[in-house]
C-alpha cells in the first residue's frame, strides 16, 4: 500500500486535473438558485407574513371571550364606530380611514375577518399538503420499490382514487361532514375535516410521481453500487432513493397546497366547506359577491385578493423550488 501512496506523478494527479468548481455545498447551491428566482423570494416573504398575521395576529385580536367566534371583533376601537347613535348596526360601510376594508352585511369589520379567514385557508392548505406528501410518498415508494403484487395492488388503488370525480365528491362529502356523527368533533366542522377529505382525494398524483421516480432511481447505477456493497433495502430507500426523489415530492406538494386552498374556498363559496360564522376567504367571497351586485364591492375584493395572492405566492414558491432543486440546472438562467 505504501508503494501506491508514493507512486510518482502518473500524469493523473488530482492537482493537475484541477477542480473546476469552488467547494460549495448542495445547500449553498440551492439557496443561490432560489435567490435568483426573485418572485419566489418575494412570495416566500409574503407567505411568511400571511402565516404570521393569520396565526399570530389573528387570535390576538380582541374577541368576546367564550364565543365560538367574534361577532364583532375589534382590531381597533371600532365598537362605537360600527354602530350609529341609535345603536343600529352600520352595515356595508365603505372603506374609510378608521375602517380600511369597510364592514360587511352584518356590520362586521372586513379587515379583521380577512385576517382571521386566513387561518382556515392556510390550515387546509398545510394539513392537506402534509397528508398528501406522507400518503403519496409512502404508497408511491412501496409500489415503486417492490414490484409485483405490492405494486399492482397499490397502483390499482391509486387509479381508483384518481378516477374519482374530485369536485362532485368533495361537494357531497363537504355537505355531509357536519352530519357524520361517527367522526370526532374537530373533523366534523372547520378546516380539519375539509383538509382530511382533500388529503384523501388528492394523494393519487403524487403517489404516481413518486412511484415513477422510484422505478427509475431503483435502476440507477449508484443504487446498484449500494446493493453490491451489501446495503439493506431500508438503507437504499432512505439514503439513496428518497433524497433523490425529494424535489418532485416537494414541488408537487406545493402545487397540492395551492390546489387545496382553492378547493376549500370553492366549497366554502358553495356553502359546503368551513361553515359560517367562522370566517373563510371563500365564504366571505360568497357573501361579498351577494352585496357586490348592489355596489358594495369591498368584502369581495379584499377576501378574493387575499385568497389569490396567497395561492399565487404558494405557486411561485413551487416554481422557484422546481428550478432550485433541479440538480441538472446550471447557474445561467436569469
Amino acid at each position, binding site marked *: 500500500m505504501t508503494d501506491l501512496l508514493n507512486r510518482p506523478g502518473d500524469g493523473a494527479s488530482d492537482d493537475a486535473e484541477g477542480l473546476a468548481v469552488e467547494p460549495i455545498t448542495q445547500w449553498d447551491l440551492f439557496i443561490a438558485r432560489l435567490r435568483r428566482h426573485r418572485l419566489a423570494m418575494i412570495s416566500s416573504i409574503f407567505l411568511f407574513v400571511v402565516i404570521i398575521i393569520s396565526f399570530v395576529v389573528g387570535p390576538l385580536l380582541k374577541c368576546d371571550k367564550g364565543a365560538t367566534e367574534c361577532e364583532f371583533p375589534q382590531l381597533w376601537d371600532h365598537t362605537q364606530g360600527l354602530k350609529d347613535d341609535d345603536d343600529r348596526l352600520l352595515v356595508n360601510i365603505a372603506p374609510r380611514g378608521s375602517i380600511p376594508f369597510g364592514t360587511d352585511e352584518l356590520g362586521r369589520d372586513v379587515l379583521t375577518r380577512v385576517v382571521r379567514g386566513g387561518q382556515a385557508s392556510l390550515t387546509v392548505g398545510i394539513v392537506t399538503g402534509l397528508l398528501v406528501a406522507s400518503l403519496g410518498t409512502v404508497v408511491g415508494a412501496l409500489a415503486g420499490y417492490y414490484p409485483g403484487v405490492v405494486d399492482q395492488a397499490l397502483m390499482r388503488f391509486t387509479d381508483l382514487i384518481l378516477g374519482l370525480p374530485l*369536485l362532485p*365528491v368533495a361537494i*357531497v362529502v363537504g355537505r355531509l361532514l357536519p352530519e*357524520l356523527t*361517527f367522526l370526532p368533533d374537530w373533523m366534523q366542522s372547520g378546516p380539519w375535516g375539509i383538509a382530511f377529505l382533500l388529503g384523501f382525494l388528492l394523494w393519487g398524483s403524487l403517489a404516481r410521481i413518486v412511484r415513477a421516480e422510484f422505478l427509475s432511481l431503483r435502476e440507477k447505477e449508484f443504487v446498484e453500487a449500494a446493493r453490491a456493497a451489501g446495503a439493506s433495502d431500508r438503507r437504499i430507500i432512505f439514503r439513496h432513493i428518497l433524497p433523490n426523489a425529494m424535489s418532485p415530492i416537494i414541488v408537487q406538494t406545493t402545487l397540492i397546497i395551492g390546489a387545496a386552498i382553492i378547493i376549500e374556498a370553492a366549497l366554502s363559496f358553495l356553502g359546503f366547506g368551513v361553515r359560517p360564522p367562522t370566517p373563510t376567504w371563500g365564504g366571505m367571497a360568497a357573501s361579498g*359577491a351577494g352585496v357586490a351586485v348592489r355596489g358594495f364591492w369591498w368584502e369581495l375584493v379584499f377576501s378574493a385578493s387575499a385568497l*389569490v395572492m396567497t395561492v*399565487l405566492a*404558494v405557486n411561485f414558491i413551487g416554481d422557484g423550488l422546481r428550478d432550485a432543486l433541479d440538480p441538472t440546472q446550471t447557474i445561467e438562467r436569469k
Partner: protein
Amino acid sequence: MLAYIIRRLVYGVVTLVALSLVVFLLIQASGGGPLDRLKLNPRAQNLIAQLTEQWGLDKPVMQQYFTWLKNFVTPADVPAADGLIVLFGKIGLRGLTPIVLVLSAGAYTVWAFLVKIGQAWWRPVRAFSLVFVWLIALWLAKSRLVFSLTWGESFRGDGPVWDNIFGAAGATFRLGLAALVMALIIGIPLGIYQAIRQYSFFDQVGTTLSFVAFSTPIFIIAVGFQLLLALYLEKWTGVKLFFVTGMSDSSYGDLGFMAQMGDIVRHLTLPAMSIALISIAGYARFQRASMLEVMHSDYLRTAKAKGLPRRRVILKHALRNALIPIVTLVSLDVAGIIGGAIITESIFGWPGVGRLYIQAINAVDYPTIMAVVMSIGIGIVMMNIVADILYGVLDPRVRYD
C-alpha cells in the same frame, strides 16, 4: 389493443362501483335524510310514513344500496319501438341533419378502423372521428333508441332521474364544449408562441399571467366577469353585452335564426370564459413546455439541417410532436371542466347538471346525487380510455399489450 380497452373498462367499472359505494354509505352515515324538511311539518306524518315505505328508507343500508343499484341498471319501461317513433315523430327534418352527420361519421370511423391505412395524415382524422362514436352513444342514450334507463325516481318528485339528467346534460355539454374549444384555440397557440419566443417580454408576461389565472379560484373569475363585464359595464356605459343568468332569453322562441345565435352567444360567453380561463393557462403552460422540449430535440436539428424553412420546421416537425401529450392533458382536464361547470352553473343560473347536482345535494335527493356522480365518473373513465387510444393513434411508437 382490444384486450387493453377491455382491461381499462373493467378497472373503470370497479372504480365506479367503489365510488358509488363510498358516496352511498357516506350519505347514509350522515344523520340527515331526504325527509328532514318534511319532518318540520307536524301534519306530514302520513306522507313521511308513505315515502319511507316507498323509498325503502327503513331498510338496512346494504339492502338500500342494492335496491339503488338495481334501479340504476334496470331498463326503463319504454319499448325500443316507442323510442323510434319518438325519434322520427318529434325531431323532424332539421333535427335529423346532425343525426345523419353523426351516423355517417360513425360508419366512417368503423370503416377507417377496419381498413388499415398507413398514410400519416390519416391518423389524426381517424382519431378525431373517435369523438363521433362517443357522441353517437350519447345521442342513442338520450333518444332512448336502443336502451333506456330510469336511474330511479327523484326524491324531489320530478320524475325519473335519467330524464332529469339528460334534460340538463345538453346545457352542460354546450357550456363544457364551448369552454374546451376556447381553451384549445387560445391556450395552445399561446403556448406555441411563447415557446418560439422563449424569454421574450411576451413569454414572461404570458407565464406570469398564466400563474395568476392558475391561482385564481373559478368562482372569483365567474363573479368578477359577472360584475365587471355585465353589471358594471351596463351601469357605466349603458351597453348590455352579456347576460348573466340562464341559457337563453325568454323571447328566444320568437327570434330569427341569427338573433337566436346571437342570444346563445351572449348567454354562453361569460360562463364559458370563466371555465376556460384556467384551462387556457394550463394548456398554454403545458404546450410551452412540451414545445420547448421538442424544439431541443435531435430530429428538429435534422429538419433544420435539411434546409427546411423555419416555419415548416415548427409547424410540421415540432408541432405534431408537441401536440401529442396535449391529448392526455385534455382528457384529464375534462374532470376539471365538469368541476368548473358545477360552480359556474350555480353562479350563472345555468340549467345544467351542475346546478341540478347542487339542488339535489341540498335536498339530500340521493338517487339524483348518485346518478350525477356516477355519470360524471363514467364520463371520466370513458375520456381516459379515449385519450389512451388517441395517444396510440397519434404516436406511431405506442403499442398496447
